[in-house]
Structures are given as structure tokens and as C-alpha cells.
């Protein structure tokens, strides 16, 4: 899966949790949980949406790797490539 498709899936998942946010306004290289007010329930629901869209299940041990949008997209790409 290419980066554009992954990015689109991430944006769609974010919009379903935080409808007031325009994901293309979020800086790619800043911690995205600062930009979008997401509590732990929101974050979990976000991961559930990603799982629905991309089939990737993110274990708790990997949460710390997902700081910026760039981190998230690289992580998902790697997981999808290794399937």
C-alpha cells in the first residue's frame, strides 16, 4: 500500500474521532496528540478505526513509537509491507 493511501486512511480515522479537526492542518513532524485533543479513549478508538481500515493491530508496546504523523505513517507502512 502506498503512502498516500495510508495517509488518507489515517486522516479519515482522525476525522471520525475529532470531526472538528482538518488533518491536513496538522504538522507532520510534531506530536499529533498535542495538535488534536485525544484522551486515552479517543486514542484507542482511533487505533480501532485504523484496524478497521488497514487491518493493522497496534499493540500497546508500540504506542510510544507513534508520536508524529510521520512516525505513524512509517510504522503502518512497515507493518503492511511485512505482511
Amino acid at each position, binding site marked *: 500500500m502506498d503512502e498516500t493511501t495510508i495517509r488518507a486512511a489515517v486522516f479519515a480515522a482522525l476525522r471520525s474521532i*475529532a*470531526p*472538528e479537526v482538518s488533518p491536513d492542518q496538522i504538522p507532520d513532524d510534531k506530536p499529533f496528540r498535542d495538535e488534536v*485533543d485525544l*484522551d*486515552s*479513549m479517543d486514542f*484507542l*478508538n482511533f*487505533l*480501532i478505526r485504523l*484496524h478497521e481500515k488497514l487491518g493493522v*493491530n*497496534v*499493540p*500497546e*508496546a508500540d504506542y510510544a513509537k507513534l508520536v508524529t504523523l510521520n512516525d505513524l505513517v512509517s510504522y503502518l507502512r512497515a507493518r503492511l509491507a511485512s505482511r
Partner: protein
Amino acid sequence: MIEFKLPSLGAEMDEAKLIEWKVRPGDTVKKGDIVAVVDTSKSAIDVEIWEEGTIHELVLAPGETVPVGTVIATLLEPGETAEHATEEARRNAARAKALAGPTPTGSTAPSTPPQPVAAAAGHVRVSPAARRRAQELGIDGTAITGTGPQGSVVLEDVERVAAMQAQPKDRATEMRRTIAAAMARSKREIPHYYLATAIPLGAASRWLAARNEGRLVTERVLMAVLLLKAVALALRKHPDLNGFYRDGAFQRASGIHPGVAISIRQGGLIAPAIHDADRKTLDELMRQLTDLVARARAFSLRSSEIAGPTITVTNLGDQGVELVQGVIYPPQVALVGFGKVSERPWVQGGQLTVSPVVTASLAADHRVTDGHRGALFLDEMAGLLQEPDRL
């Protein structure tokens, strides 16, 4: 014949507008069925019925606004005939008319009896701030039911009436007004005391991580759910923190139904109840909490969730605060707050270690409990969280 009245929708929510009926005359209903959808300043609410029978007459029409307690429908009891119900209704109406005496306007609209006000007729006391605000808003201050000293009308009463009368420009404004009225009343009436304790969560964190490791995202449980369960179980031993203070007396609630504070995106707060939280498994609580958050944010809750909470739990850990010193939501008598779970230096068995720790706080009504009781409750909760497999 059963008269179905608009149920209580929580403190500071006195009336609601009917959006639609979910039943028609002739439908049978059982306990817990949703019969109508009403709109309040905080949410659209699915109104549940707690009687069994057959719908006879829908008294209220969509679009109409009535106070809590108004008869909005009538039902036939199982086995009753329609003729019998109509006859009973006629007798009730005649009796009500006889008691009320001649009505100048001839109006027969259903309404709740006027609230008793201590002030003598024709001499309603209105506070200066309330009078100014009422003038600004073009409201007759003397016509409002007062909740201040000796039944006087105070600023919050004017604000409340203004909120009810206003065309809801947007739900956020209305919600903010409702919250303001409730919080002002709380601080005016409830003598709060505050306690806090630091609870180590090493055992709970490890247990939870191990439990979540093998599971899909959809089956994970959050730490907030363990905290909620600990509160619910601790309340079994300390029932004087779980109930309502009304008319000068405290009444213990028969069940433990914590209201979970949920923030609405872009402003606003609502704390709907999870019923019998002490009797539910962690997985059940997680599922219910997830569903409740989604529906609260979509402004679609049930009447029993809005009116039912026996205590409130608020978790602000994700926002980074260390300690919450909350405001009790009347007529409840306590509020439990949790801050952020963070790694801290912790002394155990004389040794310095690092442990995840959360600061839990209790705000409680000093008319009902003393610090000693509150302290025992927090201690009980702390103890429960050291044995997560028993939650």
C-alpha cells in the same frame, strides 16, 4: 390506567421538548422500552418507561415543551379496557378541576403544581444582581421560582429561566448555562471538604499490560476502567458517599451508578451513569464506557443515564493534571477525581523504587460525611487497586 409522566432529567434540567414518539396507541410496552425522544439543553434523550401496559393516549405532541412531572401519555394496565381508562380519565379531570377552582384563563394545559415559596404572596424577594439581570433580559423577576434564602430569587434562577426560554442558538451555549446553574448551586449549598491520596499502580499496570498484550485493539481495557471499578466496589463499604441530599436529608441510593464525566469536544461536560458498576466485569464496563462516550458526544443519551448517577467520577489524567479538586453535582454528595498516572519515586519496604502512581481525590458533602469516612473510602479504593485480578 397508568399516567406516564416526564421523568426527572437531572439537576437543573426542569423541562424538555418532545421531538418524537417511538410508540403509538395500541402498542404494548415493557420496562425499559424507549417510548419517546426529548430534547434538553444538554442532550437529546431517549425516554424510557418503567411500567408495563398498552399505550392508550399520547397526551403531548411533538414540538411541545413541558416541565418534568407532566403527564405525557396514558397507558392501559394489563387487562384494563379502553372504556375503563377513558372513564377514569374523565373522573380525574373533573376532580382536578374541582380542586383547582375557577381558572381565569380557562386553560386546561397539564402543568406541575407550583413550587412552594416561603415569601408571602405579592412580595417576592429578588436579589439586586438577579433584578439587574432580569431587567437586561426582559424577564419578570418576581414570576420566577426562587432557590435563594427564604425562597428569594437569585441570579442563578434568572439565568436558568433565561436558558429555558431562549431559542437554543446552539447546544454549547445552552449546555454551558445548565452547567453554570448546577455548579453555582453546588458551591452555594454544599459545604465541600477535600481529601487526596497517592495510589501506587505498579501491580495494576503490569496486570493490565499483560491482559491487553494478547488482545486486539477492540478488546483492550483502559486503566480508567480499573479505577472506576475500584470506586464502585469501595462504595459498597461506604454507602454514605453514594446517594442524594434533598430537602434537608440524605438518602442512600439502592444501587451504585457512577456518573462518568465526559467532556464534549469544543466545550461542555456531561456525566451520564453506568448502572450497577460494582457488579459488572471490566470488559462490560469498558464496552459500556466506550458506547457512553460515543453517545454523549453525539448528544444521544437515555433518561436513566442522565437522571440516575449516584456519585460522579472524573478522570483528567490524560490532560496532564496531577490532582482534581472537583465540584459535587447536586443532589449527589461526593465526587471522585483522578489525575495523571505518572512514574514517581516510591518507597517500598524501605527501598527507593520507581512506580506508576495516581493521585485520587474525594470531594464530599460535609453535611453527610466527615473526613474520617472519606479517608476510609479512599484507603479502601487504594487497597482494591493493589489486587487488580480481584476487580
